[in-house]
């Protein structure tokens, strides 16, 4: 069912673009930089709400929230990218993303400053990312695209949300 409706979504969207190789991205802002994620990975956009802290995990993993009965971790992208910290306000936005890890689908939220736009991009216009001097290490970035003179960095959701292995108790 979900698959079918998803396929339908994709089809509709292709029809609307009349382009075979168009992709849509949700763009959002972190400080003065603009990033984009594949819109099909976005489950929902929520406002920030307090999280329950998880002990002894990396600082950018802020904690977990209750998302309609499931426990969903929240990551702070500013902290993940070592940007300066921002205060959380009621206007702070959490983008809930789907990521697949092997054959398992996970749901995670990322904290961003604000959501900007939905952009449609021709696949051919996406440029590969050069080794540039932002605070984002290259590995998360799939490519760059220029939209109205602005540069948007397209993020690889799976790589971005891959949790680093903690030093777990080996006897388990």
């Amino acid at each position, binding site marked *: 069912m979900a698959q079918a409706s998803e396929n339908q979504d994709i089809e509709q969207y292709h029809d609307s673009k009349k382009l075979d190789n168009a992709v849509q991205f949700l763009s959002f802002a972190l400080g003065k930089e603009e990033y984009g994620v594949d819109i099909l990975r976005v489950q929902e956009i929520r406002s920030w709400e307090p999280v*329950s802290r*998880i002990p*002894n995990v990396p600082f950018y993993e802020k904690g977990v929230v*209750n998302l309609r009965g499931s*426990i969903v971790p929240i990551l702070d992208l500013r902290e993940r990218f070592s940007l300066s910290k921002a205060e959380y306000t009621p206007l702070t936005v959490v983008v809930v993303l789907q990521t697949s890890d092997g*054959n398992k689908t*996970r*749901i995670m939220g990322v904290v961003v400053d604000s959501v900007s736009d939905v952009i449609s991009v021709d696949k051919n216009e996406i440029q590969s990312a050069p080794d540039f001097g932002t605070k984002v290490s290259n590995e998360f970035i799939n490519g760059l695209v220029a939209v109205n003179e602005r540069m948007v960095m397209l993020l690889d959701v799976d790589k971005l949300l891959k949790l680093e292995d903690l030093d*777990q108790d080996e006897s388990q």
Partner: protein
Amino acid sequence: MSIDMSQFHQVFFEECFEGLEAMESGLLTLDMGDIDSEIINTIFRGAHSIKGGSGTFGFTVVADYTHIMETLLDEMRDGRRQVTQSAVDVLLGSVDCLREMLTAIQNEQDVDEASVAKHKAVLEIELNGSSSATESAAPVAHVSVDEDIADEITEIEEEAIEDTEQGWKIAFCPYLDLLKTGNDPVRLFRELNELGDLTATPNIQDVPGLYELDPEECNISWDLKVVGDISEAEIREIFNWVEGDCELEIQPLAKAKPSKKPAPPPAVKKDDSEPAEIISEVKPKMVADVKKPAPQESDNEAKTAAKVSGSIRVDTDKIDALINMVGEVVITQSMLGLVGENFTMDKVSQLKRGLAQLERHTRDLQQSVMNVRMLPISFVFSRFPRLVHDISTKLDKKIVLKLVGENTEVDKAVVELINDPLVHLIRNSLDHGIEKPAERVAAGKPETGTIELKAYHRGGHIVIEIIDDGRGLDKDKLLAKAIEKGLIEENVLLTDKQIFELIFMPGFSTAEQLTDISGRGVGMDVVRRNIQSLGGNIEIISELGKGTTIAIHLPLTLAILDGQSVAVGDETYIVPLVSIIESINITEKMLNKVAGKGETFRLRNEYLPVIRMREIFNVQSGDAIKMNEGVLVVVEGQGILCGLLVDDLLGQQQVVIKSLEANYRRVEGVSGATILGDGSVALILDVPGLVRFSVR
């Protein structure tokens, strides 16, 4: 139009496995010498419905096999044949064989033909050969002779198979609309090529001229030759998808006659030969494609893995109760809705009453839903008579297994997870617990040993006891061994309980007694850890020379847990109530520092290690004054007592366990999460994990 039978497969397999279990338990009763025509009838019925079902679904291997069993059982039923020990053993063997076959079919794997043939031969010998044999023949000898013959027969059969099954000739003539159904012959050939060496020869006589040619029609037919040791079923399986869309003829290569398919009459529109050539030029490319081994194995694996999803059988009573509850909830809800319309303050009492009712119904509803997941423990217990039967024969011991309280109900997840630990414990009892008959007689005990498997409810728990009247645990030996292994200091005084606990210590191996029955690498420490991971605990009571009792306490369900919420700073954590021994108000002064290694608390002459939750979980928030005083929650994990220092106790409540790993990862010291009344998330503490964590 054909009905899609595969939708019934799951039910069929479930019924088959149930039937097999019934047959097995019936046979075991017969094995005890308790011959009853009703039992034979039960076994017969089991075999009969498996035969019928597998015939319907086209699993002919199973049907043929069951038919022989049925014949044997039929003779027994009519009294034309004595029920002998050997016959029962052979039948038990065939039950195993059937189970293997069905499991293989269920997982869409190939049936192990050699083993089936072997079992079949044994069955046939039993059926034909020994009908006149006297019953008094020593059963053991009987079986071994049978097996020898069986081995020979198998060899002969296998040779025969090798002669004939070197390859297959397949005439594959698709109908015109094969391609329209989404099937591509190339794909079929690719699969065939994986089985063996494939040579494909296309017949292109039917291909019309270019102007009449409809590219969506399949005008080519093929003569295929596959070389290799392949069963017909495997080939049939490949062509399964196109069964209705082609003419198919499969013949073994050795006897293969030239394909019977009448060479299509010289094509009507053959006048234009060019297009035919064009197509024949396409052909070599196709063959080349075919030669490439396609890596599709991973695909198959994924398919098998997906099959694992379980189903559950539920009493209609339980479902009726559930529907009743839902009805009640709906009524209460509409009543509340009525109160809510034109609400005035004088309706408050009515509202409160309604809410109270809703609360009660919700709790009942929860209970009923949980009940649906409850299965009688007999699902686990029923496997053990067979285990005991097999192992006691192997060990030359006389052992009776008594099952008590098989109808005690327990959560499905517990049923699934308790099996392995129980098997291990029972193997232990069989192997180390119960003595050999001679030894027993010498000790003044009855020759036949007894193992009792007992399940009952106590409090919110289910208790499973394994009681044997064997030799019991030798405390002195255990102590000596523990000292030898350096697990404990010499001259330490231990209570009986502590001594028995020793066998759960990792590394406390009983290597000298290692046999193929116990000591399979699942140590007692693993058993205990498994049981603790289910939220339960295990204890041993034993008396030398009289026997051992192992008691396992398990929570009734794994989805809901009684928890104590505790405050640490601004954060709330849940401590499972089962692991809490007591809680004590303490101040800083009551803690004793131990040479830099940590803190202890003296509780009635016992020193407990203290875990400061604030420190171990890095809690920064909260009232700083409270840093040095709080509540010490005394918990037990892995047999170790330990104190958790928290700020405050908040309250007890039932919490629904949610997985933290579903979207996140395992976190040390935390076993899961739950959602509190205000919608926020609280972590559930993993007490044994915390204890381990703090020790490091």
